């Protein structure tokens, strides 16, 4: 009797030999080797995969994984000021409790009847984000903000039938790369300059670039570099006068205190849900959202699923279902549907739904305030350090601030390395990404930071920059 394999494995009920043999018999075979009859002999893998022996017991597996993962230093044990698209916010315990409910965690493609709860929770997620951005339509979560932005751009391209898109230069390099790839080969992307003094969009450059081929202008507010774009009415006018779509990217944690871009004319809003109740997870917490008005021309351009309410055959009862399913590549049109649809980041939509519910309007307002106070305080305090300039761009900022290091031989990387000795994760190095800002780094401040933390950063930075003997 052939014995290759791992018998009686806890994850594989039918790996028991006796059961296996009975089943084999049922289908007229006598060994597992006889399965896969369709695979030609030459394609059968005859080697042994170089994969270590199993940790057979759960206990040993746990020891193994824990040992490796303890080699990480995390942002709870250290003081972290990295942001740049993935931010350290407080995740309420209830968000974790709900996303870890086995029923949600392991659901997938069930129908609306057996997955009623899943459908309702997504309808609610859509509705809650819709409220936050004051739009009517929100899709189930997409991969991340860059993906949401890229799809927004493609939507505008399809709607307007125009092939050029303008993007504010104040955008993360990697987001730009993702958009570029996603829009290639159909869309030409042109960057619009910003004013290095104020951080604001160069309206002249915008005007110079906009023309009848421009499908949309995309900018972010608060911007990637953290400051606020205040010329919103002007921008909106320029874009709409050109019959282009205005796409605005937004950090949802700002929307308790900031007006939604809808208010200044955005046609499509996108952003990342990660700040709303999702752990950073080394970047695995990203999830994009998109929002529009309830106009057929927009709705029919969404590639992903949209859940809607509908009555049932029972008077007074309602349920939830897929809206305009045939839009998607899951529908009859396949590749003629809108882009493509697949597994994205649904669970984080649930987290965001729970988060917005538990925070409520007051929580979101307090969150925004706490953040803006903290970052302004940090801006003021860090600026006091010899060799640090935080006022390069003088417009108001929200969560992130740009710190320029002056009169030092050290690179940002070296400075950060020294900060680590103080258990501090310093700001993201912008030296290559935004060379025009000089030797600079971007620090992020959220509600997890206290005055004490910011002073700690200040003191450490001061030591690193100004005390030579310092390690």
């Amino acid at each position: 009797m052939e014995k290759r394999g791992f018998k009686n494995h806890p994850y594989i009920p039918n790996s028991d030999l006796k059961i296996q043999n009975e089943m084999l018999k049922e289908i007229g075979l006598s060994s597992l080797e006889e399965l896969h009859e369709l695979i030609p002999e030459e394609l059968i893998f005859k080697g042994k995969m170089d994969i270590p022996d199993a940790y057979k017991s759960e206990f040993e597996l746990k020891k193994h994984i824990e040992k490796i993962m303890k080699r990480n230093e995390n942002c709870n044990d250290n003081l972290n000021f990295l942001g740049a698209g993935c931010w350290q916010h407080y995740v309420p315990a209830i968000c974790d409790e709900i996303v870890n409910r086995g029923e949600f965690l392991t659901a997938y493609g069930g129908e609306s009847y057996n997955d009623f709860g899943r459908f309702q929770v997504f309808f609610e997620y859509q509705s809650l984000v819709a409220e936050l951005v004051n739009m009517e339509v929100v899709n189930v979560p997409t991969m991340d903000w860059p993906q949401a932005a890229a799809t927004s751009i493609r939507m505008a391209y399809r709607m307007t039938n125009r092939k050029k898109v303008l993007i504010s230069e104040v955008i993360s390099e990697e987001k730009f790369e993702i958009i570029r790839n996603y829009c290639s080969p159909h869309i030409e992307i042109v960057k619009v300059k910003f004013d290095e003094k104020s951080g604001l969009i160069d309206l002249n450059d915008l005007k110079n670039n906009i023309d009848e081929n421009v499908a949309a202008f995309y900018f972010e507010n608060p911007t990637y570099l953290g400051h606020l774009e205040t010329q919103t009415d002007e921008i909106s006018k320029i874009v709409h006068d050109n019959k282009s779509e205005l796409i605005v990217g937004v950090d949802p944690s700002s929307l308790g205190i900031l007006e939604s871009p809808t208010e200044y004319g955005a046609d499509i809003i996108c952003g990342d849900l990660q700040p709303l109740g999702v752990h950073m997870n080394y970047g695995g917490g990203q999830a994009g959202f998109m929002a529009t008005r309830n106009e057929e021309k927009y709705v029919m351009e969404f590639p992903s699923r949209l859940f809607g309410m509908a009555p049932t055959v029972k008077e007074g009862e309602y349920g939830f279902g897929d809206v305009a399913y045939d839009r998607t590549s899951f529908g009859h049109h396949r590749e003629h549907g809108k882009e493509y649809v697949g597994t994205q980041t649904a669970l984080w939509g649930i987290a965001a739904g729970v988060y917005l519910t538990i925070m409520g309007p007051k929580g979101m307002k307090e969150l925004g305030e706490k953040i803006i106070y903290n970052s302004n305080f940090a801006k003021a305090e860090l600026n006091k350090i010899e060799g640090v300039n935080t006022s390069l761009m003088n417009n108001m900022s929200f969560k992130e601030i740009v710190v320029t290091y002056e009169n030092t031989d050290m690179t940002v990387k070296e400075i950060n390395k020294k900060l680590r000795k103080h258990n501090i994760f310093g700001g993201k190095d912008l030296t290559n990404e935004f060379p025009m800002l000089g030797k600079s780094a971007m620090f992020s401040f959220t509600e997890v930071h206290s005055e004490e933390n910011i002073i700690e950063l200040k003191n450490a930075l001061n030591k690193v920059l100004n005390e030579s003997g310092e390690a």
Partner: protein
Amino acid sequence: MKKINRSNILENFHQAKWDEPVVFELSQPGERGILVPEVDKNIKEMFDINDLLPDNLKRKTPLELPEMSQSRVLRHFMRLSQETLGADVNIEIGQGTCTVKYSPKINEMFARNENMTELHPLQDDETVQGILEIMYKLDYYMREISGMEQFTFQPSGGSQAIMAMASLVESYFNDKGEERDEIITTIYSHPSDAAAPALKGYKIIYIQPDENGYPDYEAFKSAVSEKTAAFFIANPEDTGVYNTRVKEFTELVHEKGGLCCYDQANANGLLGVTRAKDAGFDMCFFNLHKTFSTPHGCGGPATGATGVTKELIKYLPKPIIDKKEDGTYYLDYDFSDSKYSVGKIRSFNGVAQVALKAYAWVMSLGAEGLYEVSKVAVLNNNYMFKKMMDNKWIDAPYIKGKQRIEQVRYTIEKYTEETGVTTGDIQRRMMDFGLHYWASHHPYYVPEPITLEPTETPSRADIDQYIDTLLYVMNEGFENPEKVKTAPHSSVCHQLIEDVLDDSENWILSWKIYKKQNNL
């Protein structure tokens, strides 16, 4: 008490039904769910909030999120979770093509640890040696499984992996300076195998199945040309039929200078049995959330781990994970200086916690265990296949009498003709017994389809229960067709009136729209 009579069918099943209102209806103004840390006193005194916010950006529109106490929030979402038929509570056979298998809880515990959740993606490599080691090793194991030379974990789903593969194809031919605009696929490959390449500007050419269900070789031969950029295919396809001649297909493409891209989202029947490389593919991807057991999370976060042969490495999105001489791991942005690199597919480093769970799963099985997974997945499927086919109203097109790999697309066409009960009716009725049931992607090339995929994790008893229930329901279709057609009866709601879902005047995509429609 008398002996309990067990039926193999959950005749008394009823799903938890809470009649739970839409969350906005639960708002009680004044209630709070959680408090945010207050602004520190000193900081508050230093600034006036009005000076920090530009007037024109300051929120004036009231934010009408619900106001709810913490326990009410919890209760709401707990109830909704009970109304969801996740794999943890269910026999997962009815979501064919989705490879919904058991996701071990221990792996979740690993992922919930702070050493995973509280890592910022831009932390210095030195501070994330643990997760880098995991991803590096997982990459290595994926190579062992596939024969490829380098994996990227950026694509965060199978469809995004397909898009990434199409992007790699684009990069490759841009680099070569060749203009090729056609991609060939098949009707039984996943819709994304057509849709994602189409997004990247490719013309999609479908190969129809021959009488065996294999992609028609002759048709394929005449489709392949110098315009063929690539061939995208799943094998086995949704039918569970493995194309025995696959190598001839890839060779043909290569002869014409094209690339071969293997959709191995569901490689569940093939681990340790046959490798992508050996069948002539230039790249492939694995859905970690399918074959590698990480939970589906209602639809992500996920990973479509994408591997390529040596010559294609330079086009991969950046970074990849590598190891220095001194044994430290790092994110390598410099592995390629090709200006034709795809650049970036997803922000940061992919969904690291999914890689962690997949790694743990692989380590709990080893090479032997992976092999067992595939063998048992195929055993389960063929056992089920045999039992299903014993029923005269159930059929499965193609290669009669031969094995399938890990799934089968059945048809109940004759049954529907006889009873008027459709696959959609059966689907709804199966829910009354707590079971999923999936028909097929659109369009239904196989009429009145059912797609079942047992994977390796149900037991024989589970499979028997599924089949018995299905036959019971089908029998009901003869005896009491109305019961089946009007199902579900034990779910949270009854049949939807679906028209509004396609009617832009009436669809309700958010609570805002509902309120507007009802002047609330």
